[in-house]
């Protein structure tokens, strides 16, 4: 099973390097304005790509439950920026729907 540790250490390398490299390459003092602007759009773009299409299948194979439950999260977050409240109510909605359907 030593082979398994080879895989684990290779995976450590290929996941850690992309995570760490930018901290050494990008220094907060000297970012070109254009790059800074590009980086400022990354959070929105990343969130969009993380939400779609994955969220449709959040409860595996049950889009008819995932979509309404996430709609609850969206509505709650729209009126109240407390993330924990949104998440809790969304999980509760999924739980209720899964109990009945």
């Amino acid at each position, binding site marked *: 099973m030593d082979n398994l540790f080879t895989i684990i250490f290779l*995976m450590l390398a290929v996941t850690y390097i992309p995570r760490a490299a930018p*901290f050494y390459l990008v220094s907060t003092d000297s970012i070109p304005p*254009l790059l800074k602007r590009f980086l400022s*759009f990354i959070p929105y773009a990343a969130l*969009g790509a993380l939400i779609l299409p994955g969220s449709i299948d959040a409860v595996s194979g049950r889009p008819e439950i995932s979509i309404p439950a996430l709609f609850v999260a969206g509505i709650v*977050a729209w009126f109240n920026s407390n993330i924990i409240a949104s998440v809790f109510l969304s999980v509760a909605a999924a739980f209720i729907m899964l109990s009945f359907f």
Partner: protein
Amino acid sequence: MKKLTYIDGLRAAIPVFTGYFPIAVTFGLLAASVNMSFLHTFSFSALVFAGASQFVALNMIKAGIGAGEIALAVFLLNFRHFLMSASISSRVKLNKLVIPVIAFGVTDETFAVASMQKRELSEGYMLALNLTSYSGWVAGTVTGFIAGDFLPPLLQESISICLYAMFIAILMPEVKQSLKAGVVALLAGLINTVLSYSGIISAGWAIILSIIAAASAGMIIFRNRE
């Protein structure tokens, strides 16, 4: 506005921890079910800390695929973190000694939480957020390996909505405040959906390209409005 502290980081990590724990439990019990040792399972989560990739790797190991091919697949699947780390590193000055710890903890979820903070990020905040999230992942893995399938299936299924609900809850207030957040996010989501369903490129490439394309489009569309 005051800088964020480690207390803020702990608080922000609650939904991430809650979402990670049950997924990691699943990883732990799957690893046990393919006869992986405790040490291997633990090392997987403790050293790699990469959600979906670990499940992909487990499947590939089970199918007898070689280490090089697994590493390449995982690299592509996680390369998006390069963009996320670049975005975080442009916002916070870190001590050289803590960089490795904080960088190791950059995930989709910790990035989403930290990047939408309006207040100034700090070392303490990043450490607390990333390490708490990490502890949820490792603790869940260990629990799953030892205790197996202990969560009631109904609860397990419901909790799987948690991280997506969190992403949406993080995005919503931004969308309410500015047009650019909604437009760029929607664009990225649509591009990723088209690329994912088209099947021409892998999931890793699809997400990287959609983030880069939507962020670039955002720069062009909102050029004159800042």
